[in-house]
């Protein structure tokens, strides 16, 4: 097990290095940030001073090395626009995004798995078919348009829920969150639902497919023949086996939820990382873009590692393979 973890960590490290190189080189090509930083009527002397103060006059590899040695000390450069450390800008907005993503994921899992089980166990009933039709719709609805329609329906026509911003936050266990206040929860519902619908459809379909493939297997028949109660057969025997792909997807999709939060945050004016990155791309705020990407990569690698570990807990076959390797 520890060999496995160490090897995975080494792999992850490699990915981080490659990504930082790619991102740095890619973002470097975006354009000349000097044009944005310096007023058009600035003198040549001022221009040079700004260029030197941001280290933009150094060769590319030297900028990269400076960036890496800074990154290792937790310094990813200062935002050109806010003149604040890029990493603290990102970290300030990380909680809002994480809150949104976690609530969305909880919604997707909480509704998705039961609905998928139902549709899988009773595929030919009206309820089963309706669930599947609904999941196709949820799958096909473009995320951003679905968000607009949620605003249209619940904020403009019905007037039940607020459509923009995060609302007041409170503290639960020392963590600042919208979940602590009633207003905050109301602000959270629409964006979280917007993010959750797609993943919910995915989980429904995956769970259903797993159930459909598994119910006919011999071990389920055997469990039935032993006279186990249906609840136990479904809850323990069936559930554990269909959870393998579902857990993988939940883990992998968590990263994509954070990425898709870019769209949701833009629509609902949610003050998270996603909105920051769109703004930063528009003004070519290089350090922030790079910092955002590295933070996202770290989150992804961490999530993937956790998924792999969970995977080996759930599926003994994986453990065996790892032991041999």
């Amino acid at each position: 097990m520890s060999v496995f973890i160490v090897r995975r960590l080494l792999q992850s490290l490699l990915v981080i290095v490659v990504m930082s190189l790619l991102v740095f080189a890619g973002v470097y090509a975006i354009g000349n940030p000097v044009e944005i930083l310096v007023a058009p009527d600035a003198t040549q002397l001022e221009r040079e001073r700004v260029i030197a103060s941001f280290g933009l006059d150094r060769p590319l590899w030297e900028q990269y090395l400076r960036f890496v040695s800074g990154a290792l000390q937790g310094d990813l450069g200062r935002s050109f626009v806010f003149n604040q450390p890029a990493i603290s800008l990102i970290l300030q907005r990380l909680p809002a995004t994480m809150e949104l993503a976690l609530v969305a994921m909880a919604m997707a899992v909480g509704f998705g798995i039961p609905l998928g089980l139902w549709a899988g166990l009773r595929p030919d009933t009206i309820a089963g078919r309706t669930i599947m039709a609904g999941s196709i719709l949820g799958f096909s609805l473009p995320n951003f348009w679905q968000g607009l329609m949620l605003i249209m329906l619940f904020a403009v026509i019905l007037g039940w829920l607020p459509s923009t911003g995060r609302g007041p936050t409170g503290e639960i266990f020392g963590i600042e969150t919208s979940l602590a206040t009633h207003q905050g929860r109301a602000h959270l519902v629409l964006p979280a639902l917007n993010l959750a619908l797609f993943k919910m459809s995915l989980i429904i379909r995956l769970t259903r497919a797993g159930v459909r493939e598994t119910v006919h297997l011999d071990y389920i028949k055997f469990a039935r023949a032993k006279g186990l109660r249906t609840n136990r057969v479904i809850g323990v025997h069936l559930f554990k086996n269909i959870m393998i792909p579902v857990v993988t997807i939940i883990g992998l999709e968590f990263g994509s939820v954070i990425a898709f939060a870019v769209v949701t945050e833009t629509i609902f004016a949610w003050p998270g990382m996603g909105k920051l990155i769109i703004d930063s791309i528009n003004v070519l705020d290089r350090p922030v873009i790079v910092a955002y990407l590295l933070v996202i990569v770290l989150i992804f690698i961490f999530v993937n590692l956790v998924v792999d570990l969970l995977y080996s807990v759930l599926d003994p076959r994986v453990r065996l393979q790892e032991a041999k390797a």
Partner: protein
Amino acid sequence: MSDDTIHAAPTRHAAAEHPLRRVARDFAESPMAVVGLVVVSAIVFVALFAPWITPQNPYDLRQLDIMDARLPPGAEGWSGMTYWLGTDAQGRDMLSAIMYGLRTSLSVGVASGFFAVCLGMTLGLCAAYFGGAVDTLIMRLVDLQLSFPAILVALILLAVLGQGVDKIIIALIVVQWAYYARTVRGAALVERRKEYVEAARCLALPTSRIVFRHLLPNCLPPLIVVATVQVANAIALEATLSFLGIGLPITEPSLGLLISNGFQYMLSGRYWISFFPGVALLITIVAINLVGDRLRDVLNPRLQR
């Protein structure tokens, strides 16, 4: 499109019945899929012939009347023309704008899909056929890319490349190729071990001929399924990026841009400017997915009865 799809899908189990016919018959068994196919065909027709069938040319300023701006659906304009889906802020007929938008969205989706298939298929086949270092290199690249969500990759690429039709097509190709490469590689790895490939090798046929004429046709069924779904995804992704303001330029009004333009009017209750383009987008994506879903079942050898 789906006619071609079916034609391009030979199956190995050549029974007494022609495989194409079996695929077509199995496909027709699902009424929803047939409806999907009909809708897809209708949308392709509208997209192809938009300039000849729309009530007005929404981008010819001489045909627009600013007095007709923001009319609700079904209203009659100054010139006596009825705007069935309302008008936008420039007095543009939404129905015509949507038909033109479909044209842009579909062509971007199909063009990027086509190039992505070519690229992904070639790399996937190479990875499977040559194995070893080539395989490792290509597949690590695929893994690396697929560990990031499409929207993130596209976002960064567009930030690097700038705006434009060609730029967004490049971004969509980069986003999609890995799916095709992985699919084709998986199928080709299974096929490569079969006797007919060995036979072809014994005949000393050139590698390119073995790969493209023998291996490729047998890897097509899963590829077709992935391609159908990916075209829908590409259309949705393009719309999303255009909505965020980093996709197509305003000179190429796709459905995403139409929706984005209507966003500001929505809070004042003028829903139609955003609503109907979105419905058109939704119908397109649902129809393509219905067809893709059915194709997946029909072409899956494990489910063959």
